[in-house]
Structure formats: structure tokens, C-alpha cells
């Protein structure tokens, strides 16, 4: 490839040797057509612009007819000046006119190198500039993004944080904007590497690199699995991509409720009542060794039958009986009791509103008192009645 | 008295009422025949009202027995009270109700049907001559009217026995006569009347037979004439006021005369088993005396009463002297 580049450059130097000499000493005279890089590489299917200058050293202003020769078939070469196509230029003495050569290279162009010649012809003076165009399928990247740890593992509840390094190789200062493409319902956000400010773009000086952070939060209900995330960084015409991955390990998620979702129960003071409690694993991994406990008002006794659940696979529920004995001093009415199911990795609790009824024993005793009083009356009627 | 057992409507045997150690009624025994008018006599507190209350089952019997119309008031007071009318001592009515309303209430308690009630009440009020004040409140009634209203209640009840406790006490003479007239009408209808009173002349006027109460006992019982013979010793007492010598001897010599009492020098009281006035007049004339007054006392309950208590007092004194 290098040899291919060097050959047209050598030609160009030979052709412009007088001009180069003139440039070296300031008393050179004449018309020169110049460019910074007379040999370029382009990619088929793209449009490239090559900046040109028509330099007049010590000549009277004159109209110079512009033309491009040696354009391969299928290519389009247009000379632009001041943003529009031009056919002639007129540089003042010791002044130049900026021109651009726009090349539209078709996709199917053959990969052979071409040499186009730009000419400026006036009354007696003329200048020409051969431009060597090499074709290449790939151009060296102008923007790169990469992550040191592209694949992270965690639970559905964890935050996945990726540190991304964006490098600007384009030789220009760029503003890089980024986007992440994640599976549905995954939340993504970009922040500074050391900060919490969310970002959507970041300026990067030429040749510099910057770190940003990508946070991915999977939905809590996600099942375990491998989820790809693609980060795309764009700056002007440059694009860079990197693939990241989340490895989500499943996690149990417990829920505690009463039967049919009821969170209320009835109980009688000082009497054991059995309250059905349904423990549900709505997570993505089985829960093992679930322990049940309760926080109840003072003097209450709460036990569970059974007191632990060995294993609860996702999507299943199991019923446990809470044996609740309100204190004999409990007042009638509502009390709150919290039932907690604890397993490694997850804890769930449900608040039960327990409506305590006081025992009707005293009510019966009261009826007994009335009964005794009535008996007393009957006795009195029997003993003293009928007078 | 010669009734068959069927005619006896009230029979008391050793009837006794004690409060603690005090016997208010002490072993009294009497029979009252159907249609009889029986007087209970005696001072206040002698046990008359208590006896009446025992007859109605309104007070407990401490001993003995009593049967009213064949029922034992201690066992079946309702049966007795259904057939016996009672006019209590100084009877009271609900002052804010009219005469009819008062009677309607008691007749309801008697268990009468509404139609029967109205009919009987109107009839009874007419009989006791209270029909024109039937719808007046009892508060405006005089004592005599109240007593008559009480009698009307007994009439409404169609009682077989009417027990009247001191019915004429506190009545003016006119009302008393009127009331006793009504009692007489009842008696004429065959109602057995039991009259308790301390007004002896009234009792004598209406009663066939009396029982004299003293300290819870019946000390005398029988027809007035019999009692007179028993207490006074004879049925007739003739008083003679005359002067003459040896008159007492001459009077005592008259056949049938059981005794002569010299009340004063010229006054003598003869007791005899017949009316000895002609003989007494003859005796005075025979003795050349001048006859100023010759009177005969029919046997008076008052006399019997007075004499009895006099002699009782004498006996007690005598007994005390003897002791």
C-alpha cells in the first residue's frame, strides 16, 4: 500500500518542482495550483472533498479556465468554490482562491488507483495538479469506544455499571453523543465517570479519550439470562460501537399475603386462631429455607405451622398457618401484626390487620347473672307469691 | 239454729291469727248460714277485720281453718274472692276516675266481659242511686256516696256473701238509714251479709245473729234475744217507778219474774221471761202505790254489751281478789 501512495507523490513533486522553488524564495512568479495532500485514499461509495488553492505569484489578475481530467468513468469530480460548482477562477496578484475537488466514488468502483488532473488555463499561464486517488475498503477508525469489563453478572436487583472509554482518533475535536440499545424495559443511563450527572454527549479533543459510565438497570421481574446491550457513539460522520452484556442470575422474590390476598384476619382474645398465610415466590430463582416470623402487639403469641419453608420455586406459592393468640388483655378492635418471610437474598413482609373479638365467656356469665336474678324472682314468686 | 251442712256458707274452726306471741284472733269457731245477716261486734282491735281478711285470704291464717262457700281461702283465695264481695273499712276509690271507671276497673279484675260489665255496672249504679253521678269523678263524692259505690261494686260482682266492714261509721244518720236500707235489699235477695260494726243499734236492726268479739275471741254469739236471755238472764226488763211499801217483794212475787233490782227507793228493775207490765201495775196498785212510770226494755244489744263487759270486769276483779 505504501508503495502505491508514494508513486503519485513522487510524480507530483517532480511536476511542481519550479513551484516549490518559487515558494522557497519570495521572488518567484507564476501561477500555481496547490493542495496539502495531493494523494488521498477514499472508500468507494463515499464522497470526499479535497481542498485546493489557486495561487498567483506576481502575475496580473487573469481569468483561468478550470478543468479536471482523468476522471474514471462512473466517478463524479466537481470543483467547488465558495460552496458552489465553479468553472473558472481569478486570483489577484499574490493572492489565492480556495477551491475544493469533490469526488463521488461509486460503490462498485474498481480498487485500482487513479490519478486525476486539475488544470487552470489562462492567457499564457497555466497550472495543473495531478491528484492521486487510491481506493481502500476500510479507513482507519476516527472514533473508538471500548469497555474494559464488557460483561457483568448480577441479580435482577443489582445495578450494572460499565465504564466506557471513548477515544477520538479523528484528528479533530469532536462532540461524541452516545446511545445504548438494551432489551425492552431495561433502563439505561450515561453518567460521568466520576459523577452522577447524566449525559447524552461529551466533547472530546482530537487524540484524547474520555471515560463515561453506563448504568443498566434490568426490570425487577426479569428472568435470569444473558442480555446484550449495544452502545453506539456518534460524532459527525464517525460512529463507534461496542457490545456489552448483562448476565442476570435469577433471584427469588417473596410476597406475603393472606389467602386470596386478604390482609385482614379475625381473632378472639386469649384464643388461638389460625390464619392462613400465603408465601409467594414471584422472583426468578427458587427461594430456599424461608423463615417466617411475626412482629405482633405485646403479649401476643404467634407461631407458624410450619415455621420454615424448605424450598419455593419461582411462580409458586405455599400456604402456612399462622397460629395467633392475642393477649388475654387485648382490647376488642383492630391491631396490626407484621408477618415477615426471610430467605437468603430476599425478605418480604405483610401487614395484617387483626380484628380482635373479646371472648363471649363474660357475656355468657352476664347472661348467667341475669338468669340467677330471674331465678331469684321465680323463687320469690314460689316462696312469697300468691297472696 | 238448725241448718243443714249445705246451708253453711262460712265455717270457722279454731281460727287463729298470731303476730309473734300476740294472738289477734284466738281460736274462734262459728258458722254462718246462707241468707243470714251476721254481725261482728266488738271494740276496735278486737279482731273483727283480721277475721274478715282471713276469710278473704288476704292475711295468713296462723291456726285452725276457715271455709268460705266450701273453699279454703288459704288455698284457693281466688275462688273465694270471686264469690265474696268486700266493702272495707272506710273504702277508697281512685279519685281521678269516674264512678263507672272505678267499677269498670274492678269488674275487669273480676274477669267480666265488656258487655256484661257495662250492663251490670249500670244496673248496680241504678240500684244504689248513683246513676246520675255515674260519670262524675269520685273525688266529688261524699262519704255516703262512696259507701254506696262500694256496695255497687259488690252488686256488680253478684256476690253470694257481702262482707261489710264498718260500713256506717262516719255516715250521717240519713245516709246510714239509706245504706242500711240497701243492705236490707241485699239480704232480701238472699245474699249472706257479714256486717262488722261497733254501732250496736244498727247491728241489732239488721242482723239475725251476732258474734261479740273481745280480745280476739268470740265471747258471745247468737240471736239478740238469746243473748239477752243469756247475759241479762231474761228476755224482758221492766222498769217500774212507783212508791209504795214492800213493792219489791210484791213485784218479785209476780210469776215469771226472775229478779227484782232496786235501783232507787222508788225505782225497780224487774227481769222476766215475759212481758210482766200488767202484773206489775196491778202489784203497784195493790200496794197502794202511785205508779209514775212503767217501761219495758226490749232486750237491747247495748244493754247486753254493757252488762257483759260490766260483769266481765267484775269477774276479773273478783278473780283478782280471789287470787
Amino acid at each position: 500500500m505504501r508503495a502505491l501512495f508514494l508513486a503519485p507523490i513522487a510524480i507530483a513533486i517532480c511536476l511542481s518542482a519550479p513551484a516549490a522553488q518559487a515558494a522557497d524564495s519570495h521572488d518567484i512568479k507564476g501561477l500555481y495550483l496547490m493542495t496539502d495532500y495531493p494523494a488521498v485514499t477514499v472508500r468507494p461509495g463515499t464522497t470526499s472533498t479535497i481542498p485546493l488553492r489557486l495561487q498567483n505569484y506576481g502575475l496580473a489578475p487573469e481569468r483561468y479556465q478550470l478543468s479536471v481530467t482523468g476522471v474514471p468513468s462512473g466517478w463524479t469530480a466537481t470543483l467547488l468554490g465558495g460552496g458552489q460548482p465553479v468553472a473558472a477562477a481569478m486570483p489577484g496578484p499574490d493572492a489565492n482562491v480556495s477551491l475544493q475537488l469533490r469526488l463521488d466514488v461509486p460503490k462498485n468502483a474498481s480498487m485500482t488507483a487513479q490519478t486525476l488532473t486539475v488544470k487552470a488555463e489562462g492567457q499564457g499561464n497555466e497550472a495543473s495538479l495531478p491528484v492521486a486517488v487510491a481506493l481502500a475498503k476500510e479507513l482507519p477508525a476516527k472514533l473508538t469506544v471500548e469497555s474494559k469489563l464488557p460483561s457483568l453478572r448480577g441479580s435482577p436487583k443489582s445495578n450494572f455499571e460499565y465504564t466506557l472509554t471513548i477515544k477520538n482518533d479523528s484528528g479533530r475535536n469532536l462532540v461524541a453523543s452516545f446511545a445504548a440499545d438494551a432489551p425492552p424495559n431495561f433502563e439505561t443511563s450515561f453518567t460521568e465517570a466520576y459523577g452522577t450527572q447524566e449525559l447524552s454527549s461529551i466533547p472530546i479533543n482530537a487524540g484524547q479519550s474520555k471515560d463515561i459510565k453506563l448504568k443498566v438497570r434490568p426490570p425487577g421481574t426479569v428472568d435470569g439470562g444473558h442480555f446484550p446491550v449495544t452502545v453506539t457513539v456518534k460524532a459527525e460522520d464517525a460512529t463507534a460501537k461496542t457490545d456489552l452484556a448483562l448476565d442476570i442470575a435469577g433471584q427469588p422474590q417473596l410476597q406475603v399475603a393472606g389467602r386470596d390476598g386478604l390482609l385482614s384476619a379475625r381473632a378472639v382474645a386469649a384464643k388461638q386462631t389460625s390464619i392462613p398465610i400465603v408465601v409467594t415466590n414471584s422472583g426468578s430463582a427458587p427461594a430456599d429455607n424461608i423463615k417466617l416470623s411475626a412482629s405482633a402487639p405485646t403479649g401476643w403469641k404467634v407461631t407458624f405451622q410450619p415455621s420454615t419453608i424448605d424450598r419455593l420455586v419461582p411462580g409458586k406459592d405455599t400456604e402456612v398457618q399462622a397460629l395467633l393468640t392475642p393477649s388475654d388483655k387485648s382490647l376488642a378492635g383492630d391491631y396490626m401484626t407484621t408477618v415477615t418471610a426471610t430467605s437468603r437474598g430476599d425478605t418480604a413482609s405483610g401487614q395484617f390487620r387483626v380484628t380482635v373479638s373479646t371472648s363471649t365467656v363474660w357475656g355468657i356469665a352476664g347472661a348467667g347473672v341475669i338468669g340467677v336474678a330471674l331465678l331469684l324472682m321465680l323463687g320469690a314468686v314460689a316462696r312469697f307469691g300468691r297472696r | 239454729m238448725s241448718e243443714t251442712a249445705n246451708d253453711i256458707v262460712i265455717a270457722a274452726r279454731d281460727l287463729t291469727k298470731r303476730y309473734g306471741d300476740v294472738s289477734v284472733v284466738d281460736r274462734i269457731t262459728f258458722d254462718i248460714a246462707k241468707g243470714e245477716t251476721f254481725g261482728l261486734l266488738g271494740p276496735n282491735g278486737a279482731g273483727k277485720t283480721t277475721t274478715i281478711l282471713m276469710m278473704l285470704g288476704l292475711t295468713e291464717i296462723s291456726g285452725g281453718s276457715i271455709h268460705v262457700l266450701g273453699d279454703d281461702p288459704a288455698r284457693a283465695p281466688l275462688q273465694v274472692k270471686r264469690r265474696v264481695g268486700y266493702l272495707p273499712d272506710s273504702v277508697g276509690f281512685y279519685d281521678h276516675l269516674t264512678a263507672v271507671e272505678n267499677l269498670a276497673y274492678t269488674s275487669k279484675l273480676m274477669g267480666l266481659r265488656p258487655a256484661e260489665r257495662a250492663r251490670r255496672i249500670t244496673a248496680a249504679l241504678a240500684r244504689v242511686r248513683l246513676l246520675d253521678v255515674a260519670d262524675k269523678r269520685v273525688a266529688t263524692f261524699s262519704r255516703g256516696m262512696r259507701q254506696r259505690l262500694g256496695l255497687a261494686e259488690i252488686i256488680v260482682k253478684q256476690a253470694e256473701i257481702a262482707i261489710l266492714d264498718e260500713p256506717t261509721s262516719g255516715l250521717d244518720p240519713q245516709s246510714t238509714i239509706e245504706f242500711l236500707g240497701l243492705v236490707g235489699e241485699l239480704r232480701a235477695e238472699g245474699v249472706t251479709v257479714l256486717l262488722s260494726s261497733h254501732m250496736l243499734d244498727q247491728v241489732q236492726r239488721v242482723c239475725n245473729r251476732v258474734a261479740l268479739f273481745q280480745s280476739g275471741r268470740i265471747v258471745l254469739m247468737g240471736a239478740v234475744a238469746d243473748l239477752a236471755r243469756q247475759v241479762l238472764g231474761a228476755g224482758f226488763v221492766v222498769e217500774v217507778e212507783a212508791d209504795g211499801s214492800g213493792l219489791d217483794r210484791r213485784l218479785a212475787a209476780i210469776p215469771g219474774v226472775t229478779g227484782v233490782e232496786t235501783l232507787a227507793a222508788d225505782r225497780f228493775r224487774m227481769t222476766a221471761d215475759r212481758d210482766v207490765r200488767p202484773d206489775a201495775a196491778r202489784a203497784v196498785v195493790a200496794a197502794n202505790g202511785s205508779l209514775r212510770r212503767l217501761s219495758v226494755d226490749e232486750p237491747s244489744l247495748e244493754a247486753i254489751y254493757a252488762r257483759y263487759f260490766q260483769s266481765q270486769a267484775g269477774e276479773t276483779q273478783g278473780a283478782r281478789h280471789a287470787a
Partner: protein
Amino acid sequence: MRREGSPFQGVGAVAVKELADNLSSARMFVLEWLIVLTALAALYSAIDSLRRTTAQDPFLLLRLFTVNHAPLPSFVAILGFLIPLMAIGLGFDAINGEHNRRTLSRILAQPIYRDALLIGKFLAGLVTLAMSLAALWLMVIGLGLIFLGVPPGGEEVARSLAFLVIAVFYAGVWLALAMLLSIVFRSSATAALVALGIWLFLTVLWPMLAPAIAQVIAPPDPRYALLGLQTPDTGIWTQMLSRISPNHLFSEAMVGVLSPTTRTLGPVFLEQLRGAVMGAPLPLSQSLIIVWPQTVGLIAGTIVLFVIGYIAFQRQEVRA
């Protein structure tokens, strides 16, 4: 000796007559208007304050019974004070009045037992009181409908009916007491004075005496006093002693029935409140269980006082 016939024969006739007497008597007329007017004043002020302050209350009707608006006490407090007066007014001369009018022996000479007279009179008095209270109850509901514009809910009606029943038995206690006194004292004036004395003692003096006696029985603990709390023992004794008064039983029962959030009428310990959801209304059945002892006290009191009077009356002589 066992007597024949029903002791209740004639109860109906006596009760009807006494009821008619009660309802037409000038005494009842005065007492009823006294109660109606005082109650109206209390209700008016209650309605006034309810309309101004209450936004949402599921038991608006019940609040009508219990809300007090200074200077007037609540409707229920007024009833607690005046029901005894009405009952005493009905009962103080029930028996001695018959004696004094000399109607007793005449009535008892009719084919009834004296049981019927006493029971009939008591029932008539109780029915009279129940009718008056029911009229007052209807008045409250009617005024509530007119001025608050809220139709009463089923539970409210049930609770206010419980109020009615308890109030009737409260009246029954005083009626039985007044009748007992009318049996014991031959003079109506004495009976009335004693009854009113007991009434004043139990409604005015006893609430002051009970805490004093309780402090003697269970002296207050200075440790509690320092915290500004009542010593539990003293509090319990105070309550026990206070409950001797039917007035106290009645007001406790009223609180329990008419304020559905009442969870207990006894002393409350802090530990009983831990975890309790405050302000939640109790179901009716639980409220009834709470006030049941008070109700039993009133019912049993009525029966026992009546039985004492009954025995006294049966043992009495008919004649004066």
C-alpha cells in the same frame, strides 16, 4: 301451703289501668315536657355544632346523641340525669298511694293475687318509660333527618336501638327502687324524698366520693403521681366504686354503644395499646360485648330491686 290459681291473673287489667293513669297524669305530663324541652335544647346545640364542624362521619346520627356543646350537656347525659327523675315520679307512690287512698284492700278483694298488682304496676311503669324514651328516640332520628339530612345507616339504627333498650333498663332500676320505697314507706312524701335523696347521692355525690374512697383503699403511688399518671390500683378501685351507681353504668354503656371507636370501658394499659389501630370503629357485636356487663348490671339491678320490693310487699299486711 300452695295456693291455687295463677299469680298473674289480672296483671293485664292492672297494667292497662296503670298505664292509662300514668299517661294521663299531670305528673307525667310535667316530667315529659321537662325532658323533651331539655333534650331539644341539647339536640339543637348538638346539631348546630355538628353542622359547623363535621365533614365526614359514618356515625353522624350517633354523634347527635353524644356531642355536647357548652354550656349544654349532651342528650345522653341529660337523659342519664333525668330518666331517674321520671322513674321516681312514676314509682314513688305506687303502693303507698293505694294504701293511702284505701283502695288496696278493695282491689285485693277482687279475684287477683297481690302479685298481679305489683307486677302490673311495674310493667305499666316500665312501658310508660319505654314509650317516652322511644318517643325521644324518634325525635332524635327525626331531627337528625331534618337538620343533618343524612339518612341513618342500619348499624346506626341498631346502635341507637341498643341505646333505647339500655335506657329502658336504666329507667327500670330507678322504677324498681322507687316502687320498693313506696312499699317500705307508708308515706308517699317520705318515699319520694328518700328516692330523690338516693338519686342525688348517686348522680351528684357518688362520682365525687368514689375517687376519694378509692384513694383511701388504694393510696396513690407517688411514682405515678410524678409522671402525672393515675395509679392503676386507684383507678381500678375508682371505677369499681363508681359502677355502684346506675348512672355511671348507664353513661359507660352509652359511650360503648354510641361511640363505635370505644374499645374498652375499663382502665387501659399502655401495652394493650401497642399495635392497636386507633380510631377504627368496632363492629356492633363487639361494642355490645363491651357494654354487656353494664347492661347486665342494669337488668340484674332492676330484677333484684323489684324482687326485694316484691318480697316486702308480699309480707306486708293489707290493712293499714
